[in-house]
């Protein structure tokens, strides 16, 4: 039965759609993004900034080589975390703890570096690999605990993953203000600088391109895992219909645990990418909310791992442009966040439009549809 809204002489009729083409979905998403730019423009105008100038800055972010490099660096943690989230969301596990998992990944990567710097453990050749493993494990542990609480005790993962964020952020802060503070850092809350071989680079490729490649490889792996492997199939079935999964003989708890392990692990790697490519050491504000932006990005991409890459680059660009707006126009930091928030709202609205066809019908006469 369609839902009807009456406005003056017109009915707006919402009718559930069964099949939506991929083209229609992409079109709705693009329109949502454009609409949010227009509304944000109006808000900027009210704040006394020229929207055209701001649009130009945003476009600049994607056309200038230097800014694009920065954009790619900033989008990588968002993309990796969003890829992790897409796995969790596909199985109906509402992991909103990517931020905390990212902090734990940053913590573990730094820990490995400190072991090397302070105690001379681990050879420089192996350092990055060990950091990668450590950050994956730390991130997945941070997601596995809520998954364990959910499968064993039925605890709501939205609450537990969120709470784990605060624990992770405060824990990292404790380390930075306490034992891990650089002794030669003039009292600033920073760890020691990472040595160059603890920061990924290749002789024939810029770090930004390297990170983009890394994102593409990870996205392909996630995509193939979901589509072609047995656990991927189980994750999709568990997410769509728990009863059918049980009936098909699937082990629901272990599926959720495995999916959470991958989800948190990818966010953990996002944390390692943040400290190694963007900052070069552990700081209290490792992430300006990459883990939360990843939620928006995962949704903007409709949980499709391959579409997460363009969506993530868009958000990386917005961050870069946000910085530029802050310096060039002395706009408050929250200015750029308006745009992000609007994109999120319009994406949600877009989800609704994808599910329901909207038609406007003139009222009056017999109402034939119902």
């Amino acid at each position: 039965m369609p839902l009807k809204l009456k406005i003056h002489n017109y009915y707006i009729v919402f009718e559930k759609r069964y099949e939506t083409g991929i083209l229609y979905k992409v079109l709705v998403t693009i329109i949502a993004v454009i609409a949010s730019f227009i509304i944000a423009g109006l808000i900027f105008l009210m704040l006394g900034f020229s929207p055209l100038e701001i649009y130009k800055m945003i476009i600049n972010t994607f056309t200038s080589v230097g800014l694009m490099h920065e954009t790619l660096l900033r989008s990588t943690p968002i993309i990796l975390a969003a890829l992790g989230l897409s796995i969790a969301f596909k199985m109906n596990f509402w992991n909103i703890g990517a931020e905390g998992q990212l902090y734990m990944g940053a913590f573990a990567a730094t820990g490995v570096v400190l072991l090397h710097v302070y105690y001379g453990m681990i050879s420089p050749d192996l350092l990055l690999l060990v950091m990668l493993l450590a950050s994956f494990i730390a991130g997945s542990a941070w997601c596995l605990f809520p998954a364990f609480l959910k499968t064993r005790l039925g605890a709501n993962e939205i609450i537990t993953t969120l709470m784990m964020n605060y624990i992770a952020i405060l824990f990292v802060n404790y380390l930075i203000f306490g034992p891990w503070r650089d002794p030669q850092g003039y009292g600033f809350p920073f760890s020691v600088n990472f040595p160059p071989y603890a920061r990924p680079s290749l002789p024939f490729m810029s770090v930004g391109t390297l990170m983009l490649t890394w994102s593409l490889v990870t996205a392909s792996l996630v995509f193939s895992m979901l589509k072609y492997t047995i656990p991927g199939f189980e994750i999709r079935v568990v997410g769509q219909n728990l009863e059918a999964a049980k009936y098909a003989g699937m082990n629901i708890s272990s599926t959720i645990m495995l999916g959470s392990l991958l989800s948190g692990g990818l966010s953990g790697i996002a944390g390692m990418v943040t400290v190694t490519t963007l900052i070069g050491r552990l700081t209290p504000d490792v992430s300006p909310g990459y883990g939360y932006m990843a939620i928006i990005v995962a949704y903007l991409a409709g949980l499709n791992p391959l579409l997460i890459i363009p969506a993530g680059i868009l958000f990386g660009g917005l961050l870069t442009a946000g910085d530029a707006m802050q310096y060039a126009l002395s706009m408050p930091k929250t200015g750029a966040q308006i745009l992000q928030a609007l994109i999120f709202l319009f994406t949600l609205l877009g989800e609704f439009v994808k599910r329901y066809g909207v038609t406007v019908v003139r009222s009056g006469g017999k109402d034939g549809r119902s």
Partner: protein
Amino acid sequence: MEDTKEKQPLVEMIGIVKRFPGVVANDEVNFTLMPGEVHALLGENGAGKTTLMNILYGLYRPDRGTIKIMGRPVTINSPSKAIKLGIGMVHQNFRLIPTHTVAENVILNAPNVGFFIDWQKIHEELRQQIAKYGWRISPESRVWQLSAGEKQQVEILKLLYRGSRILIFDEPTSVLTPQESKMLFTTMRKMAEEGKGVVLITHKLDEALSVSDRITVMRKGRVVLVKPTSMTNRDELALAMIGRQEGASLQPQPGPRTDRPVLSVINLFVEGDKEELAVKGASLDVHRGEILGIAGVSGNGQVELAEAIARVRKVKSGKILLDGKDVTSFTPRQMYENGVAYIPPEGARTGVVSELTVLENAILKSYRYSPISNKLLIRWKEAAKLAGMLIERYQVVAPSINAKVKTLSGGNIQRLVLARELLGNMLTKPKLIIAVYPTSGLDIGAAEYVRANLTSMRNEGAGILLISEDLDELLRMSDRIAVMYEGRVVGIFDGYRASKEEIGMLMARGVG
């Protein structure tokens, strides 16, 4: 009873017809509700009771027929229109906001509350209502703190606050304890004394007999009996619900029954969803080459028994033997590997994932086994071959194997489930098939198709446990019929010689 005849009926539904794709849910149904009566609408699942009341509540529109409320013909095209006409419905699943208080839930969306809310007045009014019915809830308590029975009282308060005079209860006791049910019946009687009309939708004979003034029995979309409760009895109602023997039935053929039981259930105890004992010491054998039908009024433990045997429900105590081997602690996957097929109740809900494709659903059980996959990867080419073969052999009508299952009709979804289950595991055909309501909700053609397939599997030597609410179906298909009553097997009949009346009596009261 006599004076109600002179009163104006609250509701008159005349000649209501409602068709769904492939089924006539209501076929020329007449129904009246008088003020001051509790009217039980009795029938098996799928008899069309809920459809009829959903029409009255404005959730569906009838294809044909008229509805009069207090003598005036009306068109009810939405629940809000129904509420304006004084009609209220208490659904099986409550529609309450757990974190809000009772009073907040009651006034939500209620007319005449106004912009400024006078909480004191509302609380006072609600307290009076609550005291009148002898309940113990407080308008200020939070809904999440309440028991199921108390939540239902909040639902009733919502209706009364909106001034409903016609109250419909859809299977209201399904979520209640026996004590809470008793309390609810007292409430219903009180509401009737106040001149309201109460409709109780139920499939439980005892409920209808104990609380109602009048009973309408529906079967397969039609009204088959309307009588004052004082002038009828259990046996008459049971037979009306189940139906008399229909003349032109297929000539049933006995199967190649063997002496080897493929399944033995020994003194099984199983808990239901509310942790009550649903199966209380059931024992039975299913032999290779036979169909053992299980008859029973729904809610007597049949579904829980089947789920326990399929190992999707925990066994409390007792034993399940498959070919003599103890499988009581097996997982559903182990059962599948050992040649057990399971057609679940509501196959369209629990047997498929509607957001996934036909192809993906076709391998929902075989995805772990060669040749559909190796240890890690799924071979989609092999899967597509299998899905194409299943669709063709079982004539599943689907746009393509890559179409989502939600685009298929109910009958075709059931065919898909059947196709997948009867295929067996990747090594052998199933030796035991547990089929729960396999034809419910299907049109005649699709139902016959399912029956023919089950029968041919039996002829090939499989043992089949068939649970159905359609006694005609059981009589036509089963080599033996076991009757379940209150979680126990109370009698076993030779299928083709059993009399419907005899089985009906046993279903209704547990003793012949």
